[in-house]
């Protein structure tokens, strides 16, 4: 980002304050008191609600008896990324949402914070509860170093597989490392968690691009020329099975004039930049975020915390249709974000750099095929929003080109990789898939659950081959 007078920067001290823990950890006694509130439900709804089915009452009871060691092990047995999930899971709609206390006019047990308590214990000791299994001579490659691949690799390594993760970025962890709001999860913690997978003997090939059969690089060819690469064909030759955990692609374009002006960035790149460059990341004084999903909230709150004087979220539908979780919306409001509901950007103005956003007002018409009322432009409603920076957050693409390199890989109309419901095997039997690339973009914990299940699918398939 060019140095401009209408851009601001904050100090390291401010950065630390502004991006400190959203939910500070529980102390020892507070953890025991909170754990003791747990009713220890039989066949507990929280465990059912967790995609990785962590035995929640079991790990909580262990905190109550100060057996934090056993608690940490219980969590990690079900979810090798239990530490990041404790911080980033939308607990309101998962375990805590299912807590029976909600029917009891009481606050649900703070499962996320208790899980974090046990995971902090584990991290403070570099606790490694598991070891690699006896080598079985089989090799599996995982494409992508995010949660789905990490979970898949960890599971396979414990079964004796020789697993290699291929990640095109310099660090493993995927969106955990590069794409989650700093006040929820720091890159340091995300990378530390990948060490637990490395400890199982999983090899990490970071900075390696996987290319399609005709040697074309994935993504938008961002990789420097010196970057190493490996092709699908080579993977197929060298490995008994391949897991696809590539997540999603680039942020969708606005498809309006002016999109190439300076100061127009996509949300994920922006989040990655401030998380890796911290105070070196400059933010516009006035920022418009286009979109109203969870990532849009992450970008908007980050802009505000990086010192932007005015941050607004611009969304073409109304507050009711906002796709972000309710508590994310609350977070945005608490950070002083403004909202332009029923507003459609139509053009970005500026000489070299964005100066203002031209918009039209919308109104809601008849429901479309998603069941939401279709926004329609109001005639002669043009207006301008003055801004120094535009952050696009309209969702991500689905790696269309890249996946075409795999023969016989069937995908849904919307681009998602299709898998067998039980085994996570794709239509090309050597390939299995999980995470955002099959579900279109869900939570870290969903990706972990996919990776785990796919590992068992791979194991079953390879065993069947004999």
């Amino acid at each position, binding site marked *: 980002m060019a140095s401009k007078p209408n851009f601001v920067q904050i100090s390291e001290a401010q950065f630390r304050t502004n991006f400190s823990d959203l939910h500070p950890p529980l102390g020892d006694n507070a953890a025991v008191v909170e754990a003791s509130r747990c009713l220890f439900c039989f066949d507990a709804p929280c465990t059912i609600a967790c995609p990785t089915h962590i035995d929640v009452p079991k790990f909580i009871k262990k905190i109550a008896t100060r057996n934090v060691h056993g608690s940490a092990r219980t969590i990690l047995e079900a979810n090798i990324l239990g530490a990041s999930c404790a911080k980033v899971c939308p607990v309101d709609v998962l375990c805590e949402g299912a807590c029976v206390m909600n029917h009891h006019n009481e606050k649900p047990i703070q499962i996320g914070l208790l899980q974090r308590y046990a995971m902090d214990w584990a991290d403070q000791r570099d606790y490694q509860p598991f070891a690699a299994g006896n080598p079985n001579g089989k090799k599996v490659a995982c494409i992508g170093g995010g949660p789905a691949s990490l979970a898949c690799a960890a599971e396979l390594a414990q079964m004796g597989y020789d697993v290699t993760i291929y990640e095109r970025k310099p660090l493993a962890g995927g969106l955990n490392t590069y794409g989650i709001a700093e006040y929820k999860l720091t890159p340091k913690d995300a990378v530390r968690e990948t060490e637990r997978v490395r400890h199982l003997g999983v090899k990490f090939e970071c900075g390696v691009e996987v290319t399609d059969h005709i040697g074309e690089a994935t993504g938008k060819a961002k990789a420097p020329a010196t970057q190493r690469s490996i092709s699908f064909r080579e993977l197929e030759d060298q490995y008994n099975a391949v897991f696809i955990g590539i997540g999603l692609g680039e942020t969708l374009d606005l498809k309006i004039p002016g999109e190439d002006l300076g100061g127009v960035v996509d949300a994920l790149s922006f989040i990655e930049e401030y998380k890796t460059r911290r105070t070196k990341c400059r933010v516009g004084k006035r920022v418009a975020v286009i979109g109203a999903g969870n990532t849009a909230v992450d970008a908007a709150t980050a802009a505000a915390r990086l010192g932007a004087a005015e941050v607004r979220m611009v969304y073409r539908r109304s507050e009711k249709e906002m796709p972000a979780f309710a508590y994310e919306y609350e977070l945005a409001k608490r950070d002083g974000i403004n909202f332009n509901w029923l507003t459609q950007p139509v053009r970005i103005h500026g000489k070299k750099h964005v100066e203002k956003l031209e918009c039209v007002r919308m109104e809601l018409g008849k429901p479309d095929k998603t069941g939401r009322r279709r926004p329609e432009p109001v005639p002669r409603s043009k207006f301008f929003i003055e801004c120094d920076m535009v952050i696009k957050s309209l969702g991500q693409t689905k790696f269309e080109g890249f996946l075409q390199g795999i023969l016989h890989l069937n995908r849904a109309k919307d681009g998602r990789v299709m898998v067998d419901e*039980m085994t996570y095997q794709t239509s090309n039997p050597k390939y299995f898939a999980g995470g955002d690339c099959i579900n279109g973009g869900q939570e870290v914990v969903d990706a972990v659950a996919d990776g785990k299940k796919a590992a068992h699918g791979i194991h079953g398939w390879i065993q069947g081959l004999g």
Partner: protein
Amino acid sequence: MADLSITFAKKIKSPNPFWLASAPPTNSGFQVMRAFEAGWGGAVWKTIGEPIVNTTSRYSSIDYNGVRMMGFNNIELISDRPIEDNLREIYEVKKRFPHHAVIASLMVESKREVWHDIVKRTEDSGTDGLELNFGCPHGMSERGMGSAVGQVPEYCEMITAWVKEVAQTPVLIKLTPNVTNIAAIGRAAKRGGADGLSAINTINSITSIDLQDLTPRPKVRGKSAHGGYCGPAVKPIALNMVSQLTCDPEIQIPVSGIGGISTWQDAAEFMLLGCTSIQVCTAVMHYGFRLVEDMIDGLSNWMDEKGFKTIEDFRGLSLARMTDWGNLDMNYKIVASIDPDKCIGCDLCHIACWDTAHQCIHIEGEGREAPTRNEREAAMNFLQPPVHHPLTVHEPILHSRGITNQNIGISGNGGARRAAPPITPLHASTQDAPPALRSNRVPYVDEEECVGCNLCWLVCPVEGCITMKEVDTGLPEESWNKRLKRLSQTAE
């Protein structure tokens, strides 16, 4: 408003039945005056005798589920202050608070003239009564005092009689619970001439052991000794022992109830079993003297609600409802009833009944069906686990419903050796996480099998969700004793 004032053993008057027990809170005049200002009706002074030397530390406790001091333990001895200081302060307190009850607790070596001397000196201070400490179970007992006296009926009777030879004020005997039959000691005190009893003193205890350094608590330079246990945990034991005293036809002298009393409800319970006054220690050591405000207020409101004008109106009323097991009606039947609207679906009643009671609370839900009686019996006969499936493998919630269902199949299973599993359609997974439905988790009771044990009701965290309903068995009331009588009559 109800009248809370009492007269204990005809002579000790107190504006309310709430006394502080002889313990650290009544160690000095300063403390007792603060307590009276806070509302306490009486105080039994920290036991006076030849001053002792204490150790550090002195206390340890048991916490439960994060709540502190559910049970409390001490190895502190009697007063470490000179006898004359204590007596002077009693005099000052009585001068300032003439209408409050001040009772001096005494413990001296077991010699007639020593007891005579201390009783006379103490009564000169203006105390309203004397409490002989025959209960302290630690330290003093090793020197032949405290519970060493209270555990032997003959000693207890003898020393009581010595004191009564000179005492002008009522004499209460404080009893130890560390005996096989507390009533036997109570009777001995009565024979010695006691005017009242105080019960119970603390129970021999080791509260806990530090699992890091393996030292029991409380620690005194790497060692510990058994102490005396008190606090909320001991209340049920104390209630039973008090009832053994108040029910005994040979005793029938006023009792001051002690043992885990923290609230007005606890106090009311002791009085319903016949106590005239009650004594508190651990609760004020936890929260301070201000605790008495709610004790007075709560008891008074309850009495107004129940129409009791004085303490005597309800004292001992529950004694008539205590009997021997042999007199209980065996034809009375209750069964559990679960209110589905109140149930929050924790299923604790189900697992408690299933694992540890009578297997009569079932859950019907997806993937689970309640076993029939035959199935259960069959399972028992073949020594197999009952037909019941604790969910270890959960069906995936996500990805359970695909948006596209075209079955493209997986061609060629690579020469799989085992039978190929049925081919499931490939799905593009969708966000589909239904919240756990409460209605699927509401258990139901098999009333035929329910024995009415109360366990489910006790484990249920929701007030009023499980109730125990009376069922008409059509049989006349009959106790074990009556049945034996009937059977012996038919035999004749």
